[in-house]
Every structure is written in C-alpha cells, then in structure tokens.
C-alpha cells in the first residue's frame, strides 16, 4: 500500500514491498499448481514466434504470470528494435 506513495516520489522500492510482490506471485503459482517448466517453455516458444516478426534482443524479453483476484494475467514484455518486413517472405 505504501508502494504507490514511494513510487510517486521516484524512490527505490523498499525491500519489503519487493518481498510482498514476489510472494504474491510465487504463492499464486503454488496455489494454482503451475509447473515452472510451463513458463520456461512458453518463454522459448514465444521468442521463436516473436523473432519471425520483430527484431529484438533475446534477453530483454520478460514473461511473467501475475495474480489478479482468482486468476492469472500473463504479462509479456519485449522491447523491440524494429519490425521485420513481412511482405518480403510472401
């Protein structure tokens, strides 16, 4: 709850708020019985697909499952440099 105020002032988040965020994520995964390998495989396969359409650096891709209420939101972050010209492949 105090996270937003700190973020408002542009300060580094306290380790306790980082702990809370990480715990929420990991506990949701534990509760929903998510296999770590699912996330890892999804990560690899998404990169393969994304590479067909965009130019980006592989290690900038971040995929995470975020708990929201009683379910998950899948969040994929991939800062890309530019889109490939798809018409060339046709």
């Amino acid at each position, binding site marked *: 709850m105090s996270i937003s105020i700190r973020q408002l002032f542009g300060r580094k988040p306290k380790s306790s708020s980082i*702990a*809370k965020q990480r715990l929420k994520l990991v506990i949701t995964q534990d509760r929903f019985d998510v296999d770590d390998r699912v996330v890892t495989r999804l990560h690899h396969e998404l990169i393969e697909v994304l590479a067909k359409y965009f130019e980006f650096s592989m290690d900038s891709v971040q995929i995470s499952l975020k708990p929201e209420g009683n379910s998950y939101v899948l969040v994929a972050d991939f800062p890309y440099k530019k889109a490939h010209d798809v018409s060339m492949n046709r």
Partner: protein
Amino acid sequence: MGKVIVVTSGKGGVGKTTSTANLGTALALLGKTVVLVDADVGLRNLDIVLGLESRIVYTSMDVIDKQCELSKALVRDRRVDGLTLLAASQKNNKDDIQPAQMKAICDKLRSTHDFVLVDSPAGIERGFSNASAGADEAIVVTTPDVSAIRDADRIIGLLQHARIEPINLVLNRFSPELVGNGSMIDQEDVIDILNIDLLGIVPEDTGVITSTNRGIPLVYEEGSEGGQAYMRIARRITGQQIPIPAFDQKGLFTSIMNWFTRKG
C-alpha cells in the same frame, strides 16, 4: 469437551515449540486445564523448553504400545495448576506412529482438558499428518520472511484440505524497527498474502533465548515483551477480545487494530 489445536508451520525453526510452551503455560495461568502434546517424534524439544526434561518417564509411543495408561504418561508442570505434557519418543521416528493413533490420543485428552495443544514438526510429511490428525483448529506460526511465509501458505492449503478450521496466524520474531525502515514485511501485508486471521504478533525478543536456557517460559517473566504478547494471544484463544497492537512506520505503538473473535 475441550479443543484440540495444532501449532504448525511449513518452515522449521520459526517458533512452534516456543509458542506451544508459552501459550500452554499462559492458558494454564488463566485457569484453563491444558495438555501439551509433543508430536515431533525423534526430535522432541517441548520437554526441554518447558524445563520438564528430567521428569519424562513415558511417551506417546508407550501409550500407543499399551505400555502405560495415557493418564500416567502425562507429566505435571508443578509451577502452575492444570498444565501437563505428553512427551514424544526420542528413540522412534515419525513413521512409527499412525495418524489414527494420534487422533485417538487427542480425542481422549479432549474429554478431560479445556485445551490440547499439539506441537507439530516442520514440513508437510508424516509428522504433520500425525500432528494435525486429531486437530479441530490450527495455529500457523510464521516469521516475516519470504521463505517462511511461502511455506506457511502451503501448510494453510493442507489444513484447509483437511477441513481444519479456524486457522489462525501467529507472526513471530517481528521487528518494528525493520518494518519501520522498510526492510521487513508488515503484518497487514502478511495477512493480505496468506488471507487468514491474525491471532497475534510476537516481537523478536532475546529473552526467548535465556528463557529457553533456563527452561522457564517467557510468560512467567514480568515485563517481557514476548511474554506479554503470548499472554494476549492466550486470552484471545479463550475468546476475550484483546486488540492487537499495531506498529507504525517509526516502530511505535500507535494505532490499534481491532481483532474480532472467531465465530463460535
């Protein structure tokens, strides 16, 4: 008919035995009849924390093996009326006892005591199944660190699955200073994450070490912060509505968080 309460945790070393000894003594000081059951077979400690180690003759294993009557195996704590201990066997291991056998012992004890507190071993294996087999309610102990909280959530899931309720939380080794400077997760966040009711907060207290050295539970020590915290928790267990003191960012007691008694 008394209540059987299992004191448990996922992670080890978070304060289950300390809590069982102090809450048992506190409940007896409040005039209740209490029996403490050590379910940590093979790694018993409740006897030494209570200072009763030299007086153990029989254990729950002897009762199960019909070597002695249940009532004869109970060691009376001479410092307070109404407090006894059923020790665990140190020579056996957790697999030598069946959950049904533990349940039978708890059911018998329940008919002659107001409270049966079972000190569970850490973990999610057989020791936990044995300790929780006869329980009506549970107290989950955690410290405010990520591993202990995560493991507490696992245990809460298992307790819910076993239809043990209510499940209440004791937050142990809490440090207002660390919460104040943002390095320790606070009680509201812990409850928000685990989603169970908070029974009480026990501060980090070096007195725990000296009291364990002596075999005299902290609740006997006047002016001890930890002892007072355990006294308040015991009162809540008996149904009294005692507010849980909350700590603000500077680590001072300022606001009061209301604690509502459990249904029933």
